């Protein structure tokens, strides 16, 4: 099958799109430069996953979405994820490329918290957005997909928590691709200023079983000195969506960034999660669980880079592969020269449930500093037939036994996740993918 590798949109289109959105000049400029870069730059380099035949170009770019008057208008899948008591939540629902619902409590507004869709934020807080947008986190010119991301950005949120402000309630966003062909070029920019604290939870949802489209999402998270950020995500794109997910953290002195990622897409996925521990005593946990099924192929990278002294990075990822699903789990701990007394640990475990499933774990430690602690554990294995025999010998059906083994395999990660909302969502989504 010959796959179209050129975008169906030209520079003229990008210019008009930006003007229609009334974007500030600096951002229009980024878009246009990015458009040219996207033509030249190569695709991301993946050691072990072949993406040549993946769809990155067949999609609709500009699809509107209506406001919702009531949460009953949301599909079941989203209502389950949101759970009870939505009305009081600090929540944005993005529907295709528009905001369907947005709420931030007066209390948080009063404290100076900004929580807006990215286009509004560019209008109202242009300088602040410009300072962080694709500068020190993800760069436009990393590869063809980061460049396309900047050129075609059509959705996103901006969350800013001022100095010393502690946000107790989780801030939530749902990105809902209601249109089965609508692409999501989505940018999340989260800045937690010094000594602030916030928990952010996002969900991506689509239903395109047959129709093809693309998701290209970039998150940039800044935990400035002394800040604490918990970033939870449950990705849930349907089979037809090819996803490029790039989540990047920058962590200052005495700051903490906790990632809790449920990588539950049903389509082909590249997911890269890099955290730069810049400050002394910075800390990051990157926890991720995955269930692969059908024919999907996925490539996951969890990478923590230590620059600050006594920085600590812990990667923990567990994946279950069913059917003919294939996944690569790269775990990278990199300790730069000078990051003395740092600790880089990682654990990747993959369980394959069927003969056709494939999994691979690549633990990598790159250490340019003598005074460090580092360790890795990795395992890839098939489900133990004796375990299934044992469970079934108590009357439990094969399906139920497999369900128990899958939940059991993922639970050591799920139960470590510090955000309750994400734990609940994950158990729900895992349950849905087990059968």
């Amino acid at each position, binding site marked *: 099958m010959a796959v179209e590798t050129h975008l169906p949109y030209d520079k003229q289109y990008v210019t008009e799109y930006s003007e229609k959105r009334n974007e500030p000049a600096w951002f229009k400029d980024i878009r246009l430069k990015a458009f040219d870069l996207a033509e030249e730059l190569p695709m991301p380099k993946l050691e072990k996953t072949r993406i040549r035949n993946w769809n990155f170009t067949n999609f609709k770019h500009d699809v509107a979405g209506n406001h919702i008057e009531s949460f009953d208008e949301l599909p079941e899948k989203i209502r389950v994820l949101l759970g009870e008591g939505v009305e009081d939540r600090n929540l944005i629902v993005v529907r295709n490329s528009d905001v369907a619902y947005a709420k931030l409590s007066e209390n948080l507004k009063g404290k100076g918290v900004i929580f807006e869709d990215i286009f509004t934020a560019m209008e109202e807080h242009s300088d602040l957005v410009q300072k962080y947008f694709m500068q020190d986190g993800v760069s436009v010119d990393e590869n063809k997909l980061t460049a396309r991301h900047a050129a075609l950005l059509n959705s996103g949120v901006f969350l800013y928590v001022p100095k010393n402000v502690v946000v107790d309630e989780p801030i939530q966003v749902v990105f809902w691709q209601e249109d089965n062909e609508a692409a999501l070029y989505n940018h999340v920019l989260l800045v937690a200023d010094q000594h602030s604290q916030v928990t952010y939870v996002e969900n991506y949802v689509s239903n395109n079983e047959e129709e093809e489209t693309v998701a290209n999402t970039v998150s940039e998270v800044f935990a400035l000195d002394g800040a604490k950020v918990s970033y939870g995500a449950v990705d849930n794109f349907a089979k037809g969506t090819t996803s490029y997910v790039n989540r990047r953290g920058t962590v200052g002195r005495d700051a903490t960034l906790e990632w809790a990622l449920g990588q539950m897409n049903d389509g082909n996925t590249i997911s890269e999660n890099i955290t730069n521990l810049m400050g002394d005593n910075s800390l990051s946990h990157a926890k991720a669980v995955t269930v692969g099924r059908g024919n999907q192929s996925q490539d996951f990278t969890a990478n923590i880079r230590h620059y600050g002294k006594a920085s600590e990075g812990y990667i923990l990822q567990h994946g279950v592969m069913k059917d003919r699903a294939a996944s690569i789990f790269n775990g990278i701990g990199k300790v730069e020269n000078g990051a003395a007394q740092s600790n880089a640990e990682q654990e990747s475990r993959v369980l394959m449930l069927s003969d056709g499933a494939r999994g691979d774990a690549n633990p990598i430690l790159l250490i340019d500093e003598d005074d460090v602690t580092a360790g890795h554990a990795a395992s890839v294995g098939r489900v133990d037939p*004796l*375990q299934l025999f044992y469970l*079934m010998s*108590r009357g*439990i059906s*094969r399906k139920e036994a497999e369900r*128990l083994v899958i939940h*059991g395999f993922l639970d050591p990660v799920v139960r470590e996740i510090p955000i309750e909302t994400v734990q609940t969502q994950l158990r729900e989504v895992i349950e849905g993918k087990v059968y």
Partner: protein
Amino acid sequence: MAGSTLEIKDLHVEIEGEEILKGVNLTINGGEFHAVMGPNGTGKSTLASAIMGHPKYEVTKGQVLLDGEDVLEMEVDERAQAGLFLAMQYPSEISGVTNSDFLRSSINAQREEGDEIPLMQFIKEMDATMDSLEIDKNMAQRYLNEGFSGGEKKRNEILQLMMLKPAIGVLDEIDSGLDIDALKVVSQGINQMRDDKFGCLIITHYQRLLDYITPDHVHVMMQGRVVKSGGPELAHRLEAEGYDWIKEELGIDDETVGQKA
């Protein structure tokens, strides 16, 4: 009706192409306790595993019937639902699945959908049974058998036996790894199951266990067959004299399954 009947007829079992069981015959009626003894490597665990449907063992000949129903045609879970239970010599460890969730799933698997055991009733029964087996309450929330000591695993098997209340229990070396006090506690548990319906096949090397649980019948396995059967006195004689006299009586040189009789 006085319980169920398990009939094993001329059972031949292979593992990886090698014949291990070479024609076992045994009938266990409800209400009866049978002990199976025999030296190491004579096919006792193979018999137990084959009855339950262990994936590695291939039955090449013979029959296993539960109340006339062909057990060998059943999936492993169907065998359990039909009333069979195997306490394993080496129970699997299953990470991430708590002991209590597993037990509840097992109990519910034997009940109709919509008729699941109420949570409170389950907890009460589990607590009481754990108490009677002197199992630490923490074990309920620990992952299934993970990091359990040898003796803890065995008690956990009996906990399952007592909660699932099967028609026929097969207990493979339930006494190995138990200290003297635990042996007493576990035996009491098994004896509690004893009524005119419950049938039990107890595989053991030691008279010790049979001091607590008096069997109605005792069988000796050698070379993948039952070579001698008798009453409780047979176990006493084995305890006192070992197996040599049987081998002499039957002209057996090497009792393991590798040898042709």
